């Protein structure tokens, strides 16, 4: 997944959109993972993890301070998931990286693996990758895409049942919705199919709800995907 950063200069402020939503592991867990290694180099992410406030410069510095003397150095790579940018941004840290026992990575799983490929070092993931999300504000994110390989938003009124229905149902709601709320999460979350119904109704396209959607082809997601478009 390619991270993007959009600095949108509007009237109010610069906004960073996040794509991959991450969360820091607990300090205890990070300490436990770091403990066996004498020296670590910290790599942060200048894109999504910066937007999430989980692996930006501020968090990387705080982590370096907390881990103290074993930290040989740190860098915030603009996009750790982009091999070209990893090479570019880590070039200046070659010496520190060579002697470090491990790299503590404050990026998503894709970023952490790109760092691993480049450095060939033992990687300690400081973040857990949660989902591809929509940002409402810093700290408030919603999962909105599961990268299912077959986008059906046109047929479902702009609301994805694969990710927003707890059961990923493709042909309508289950019996677990009550007054538009989902049985999962104690009827606090919206039923995706009621949202879809309302959206299609607004658009005057309710007929779309009647068309049968055949089973999804899961085979594409059954192995790690690659794309070679040119």
């Amino acid at each position: 997944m390619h991270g993007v950063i959009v600095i949108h200069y509007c009237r109010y402020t610069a906004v960073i959109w996040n794509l991959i939503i991450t969360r820091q592991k607990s300090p205890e867990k990070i300490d436990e993972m770091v403990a066996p290694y004498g020296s670590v180099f910290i790599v942060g992410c200048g894109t999504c993890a910066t937007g999430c406030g989980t692996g930006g410069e501020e968090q990387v510095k705080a982590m370096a301070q907390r881990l103290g003397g074993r930290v040989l150095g740190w860098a915030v790579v603009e996009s750790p998931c982009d091999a070209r940018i990893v090479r570019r941004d880590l070039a200046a840290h070659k010496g520190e990286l060579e002697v470090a026992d491990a790299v503590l990575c404050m990026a998503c799983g894709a970023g952490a693996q790109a760092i691993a490929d480049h450095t060939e070092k033992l990687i300690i993931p400081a973040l857990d990758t949660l989902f591809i999300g929509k940002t409402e504000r810093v700290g408030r994110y919603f999962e909105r895409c599961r990268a299912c390989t077959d986008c059906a938003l046109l047929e479902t009124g702009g609301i994805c049942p694969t990710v927003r229905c707890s059961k990923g149902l493709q042909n309508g709601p289950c019996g677990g919705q009550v007054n538009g709320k989902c049985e999962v999460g104690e009827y606090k979350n919206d039923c995706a199919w009621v949202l879809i119904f309302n959206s299609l109704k607004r658009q005057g396209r309710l007929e779309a709800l009647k068309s049968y959607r055949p089973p999804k082809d899961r085979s594409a997601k059954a192995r790690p995907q690659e794309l070679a478009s040119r």
Partner: protein
Amino acid sequence: MEMGRAIHSRLMKAITEGRFVFTGEVEPLKTANAEDIVRAAEALRDWTVACNVTDNPRARAYMSSIAAAHIMQIRTGVEAVCQMTVRDRNRIALQSDLLGAAALGIRNVLTMSGDHTTLGDNPQAMPVYDIDTAQFVRMVRGIVDEGRDLAGNRIAGKVGLHVGITGNPNAEPLEMEIMKIEKKVALGAEFMQTQATFDIERAKGFLREMGRLKIPVLLGIFPCKSYATAEHLRRSVPGITVPDEFVEQMKMADAEPDRSRQRDRIDGVNIEFFSSMIRELRKTEQLAGMHVMTIGYERIVRSLSENA
């Protein structure tokens, strides 16, 4: 039901002949002992045409519905409506289980989404939902009508199964619920059993719509074996509205100190409420019968059946 389709079960035969039928329900639990199932089925045998066998309700890991349905059929002669959810099995496992169920003599399958894994007793489990219930209906039709699995692979020999769907007269927006049902009827669903309702007017409206879709409906009712059950249903089961009057009468019946008279009075409240509901709804052409959710209260079915 589509004309010309072969009939494989007593349930479908009775529905097709226009007999007013009752189905009951038995619930396999977390045990390998089927005696309770057999006892419950025996208590329902004379008053029902078939009994549903639940498939890990509330996402609890219980005895397999197929195994329990088979044991019930063999030992009691009660025909099973084998509930099958898409929650725990991918399309390979579902197709395999459909063939296995048919081989064991199971003839009715009720397709369901299944309560979500996170509500169950193994909430960390992977929720499967490889296919949904509409696709499940299509799968059964393909197996039965075309002798082919979902991917088009040929199945050797005939498979005799009837496919049922669930419906919810209480659902809001009802228009969406009806559209979903319409889709499944077009895919070849043969009968419907509904969520429990206490609301006669709502049930009437729902049955009118089902008449338009031409699917026989077994309307779900939930007789309450105690005041506590009625109160629990009213307070804790979202989406079901239990009339205050019914709960109040249950409360009064419950206050009877003599155990045997208390039992009779509770039965009386249920019989009065549900029998008049059934009599009223039987005027509706699309009502094929009642699905009585009877777990632990099997004796009520006889009275309801006799008073219908």
